[in-house]
């Protein structure tokens, strides 16, 4: 067995790839949570009366955050899909 293959097998057995994916998923979830909080704060600020310039800036920030949340949710869905696929494969291997 070559060294590369050995390391790959060891990583698979120890589930290190999964660990990386799940930590990425965790970071993404944390980020999405923080973005949601930011979104709520801006929405609340927009409900209050503010000058035209501030309202414009807040609306712009809100739009940007919405785009980021949308992108983040899409990525999270992709990661979860990949996870399920791997789990299914593992089950079929064991079965």
């Amino acid at each position, binding site marked *: 067995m070559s060294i590369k293959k050995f390391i790959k097998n060891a990583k698979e057995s120890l589930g290190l790839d999964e660990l990386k994916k799940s930590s990425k998923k965790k970071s*993404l979830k944390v980020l999405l949570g923080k973005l949601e909080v930011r979104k709520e704060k801006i929405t609340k600020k927009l409900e209050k009366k503010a000058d035209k310039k501030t309202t414009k800036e807040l609306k*712009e920030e809100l739009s*940007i955050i919405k785009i*980021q949340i949308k992108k983040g949710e899409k990525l999270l869905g992709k990661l979860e899909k990949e996870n399920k696929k791997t789990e299914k494969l593992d089950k079929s291997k064991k079965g």
Partner: protein
Amino acid sequence: MLKKILLPTILGILAYGFWISPDFKEIAAGVAIFLFGMLSLEEGFKVFSGGLLEKLLKRSTDKLYKSIGFGVLTTTIMQSSSLVSVLTISFLGAGLIGLTQGIGIIFGANIGTTTGAWLVAGLGLKVKISAYAMPMLVFGVILIFQKAKTLKGIGYVLAGLGFLFLGIHYMKEGFEAFKSTIDLSAFAVEGFKGLFIFTGIGIFATVVMQSSHATLVLIITALAAGQITYENALALAIGANVGTTITAIIGSLSSNIDGKRLAGAHLIFNVVTGLIAIIFIHQIMSAVDYTSTYVGIANDDYTLKLAVFHTIFNLIGVIVMIPFIGKLVSFLESRFGQEIREEDAEYDSIKYLNDSVLELPATALAAIKRETEHLYDNAFEIIAHGLNLKRGNIISSMELDDVIADPYSAKGIDMDEFYTYKIKGIYGGIIDFSTNAQSQMPPEYIEELYQIKLSNRDIVEAIKDTKHLQKNLLKYTISTNENIKKQYDDIRKGLADLLRTIHTIRTTQEYDEIVTLLAKARIHAEQYDVIANGTLDDLIRNNLITNEMATSLMNDSTYAHDISKNLIEMAEVLFIKGDDETMELNEELRITEDDIEQFIEEKGQK
């Protein structure tokens, strides 16, 4: 001159010694094999130390006690305080740690190195370690020939240990055989006179061998064979402790000013510790006797008692010096000031790039990144002044309209002159150093280095574009035509906003804020496209600006767009803090041209 005489003299003395005494030859060969083992061991640990040590450093050196613990642990594992001190100088040179943290690590290394005496006295002399040396050497050398970096590293460590054991074996055998021909203990000198003489010999031997470990093993084996007295062995150990600072001093010669300060701290610490040990030798010896009895070491087991002495006097040194670390740092900072030649005073040059950081790929990379940040600091000044803005205003919470209403100067700055004084030297230095560092870097570092090199190019391009922009900007911001004046003020406002955003990205720890700010910056960069957003058409159609003004605005808005693009790309590489996952996430969440188009469309509909 001294160097020219010293080496042939030492070689001559050794050759004469080999000629008259085969036993001396055996001892010297033992020392040589031991030193070769140290080199091999250091080579092996360097393979693993890069990324791992950098990660450990970040977590383990924020408090002084942690720095000391880090020094103790790494030296105990690597069995080389010299390697730890050279690596610490490298970390310091790269700006990964501060001087106080560096001093903490050196203090810890002095305690960690005492484990070597315990290993040799407790294990090396009581077990036939040459039996372990042979298989280690065989396995080690086989692994050294492997292509895989990790296996090679393990090979060097194994071979290193093998050579260390073999060296100890030869020294032991040599001294045993020596006993039958010459009794070195007849040269023993008693009292304080002997203490000073043997301390001097210890310093000399360590300076020559550049390893206190090797000197200590030599002392322990000689002591075990009864060739030196216990008192003289203690003095030799004190000397070895002082002599070992030479490695750090040599290592610091190629380092920056902080490296030199650290080597100074090492020397002061070891000399003070040595003096304390000499002055209070009888009290420390009593403490050694008491501790030895307490832990069950026989009264005549002088080799282990030497190990106890070595540990106690280094511990005393650390305890005595800890309260003075702040004063030591102030003293070193005032003693080793930055020397600037008069003709160089106006030219800014590299701060973090020196040969000491080349010790590890991770420190070399960190130093290049730091230097690029230094380049950006200067670029920020030039770009701000080129746009006729004040830096203080940009990074304040001042309204942007007020920022652009407060010009830096009436006639603008000479950007070429600024470039020559503040950018050229640093940029050239970074490129030269990166090329040199790249040739010694493993592939996994190359991609990051490439990204940093691109950031350097982005910074320089942004300055050049600002220079192109400056001429018309100065002309039209004082124009009587309010329409063109507004356009150029908008460009200044947009770029001031970007510089402020980058400053926030650099200083904030909140990743969600960074993501939002980067997206905002990318969207704002598109606002300069005066053709696409219809601004130019409106101005021309309504005869609000001349043809000449229109051409200038078209070209200059492209420059403003390019400046923004380059600075955003640079900020994404230099200022996003976090682990690999964060970097990956940033890559995947980066706002694309489609997102921007969608954003602009939605904005238009509203």
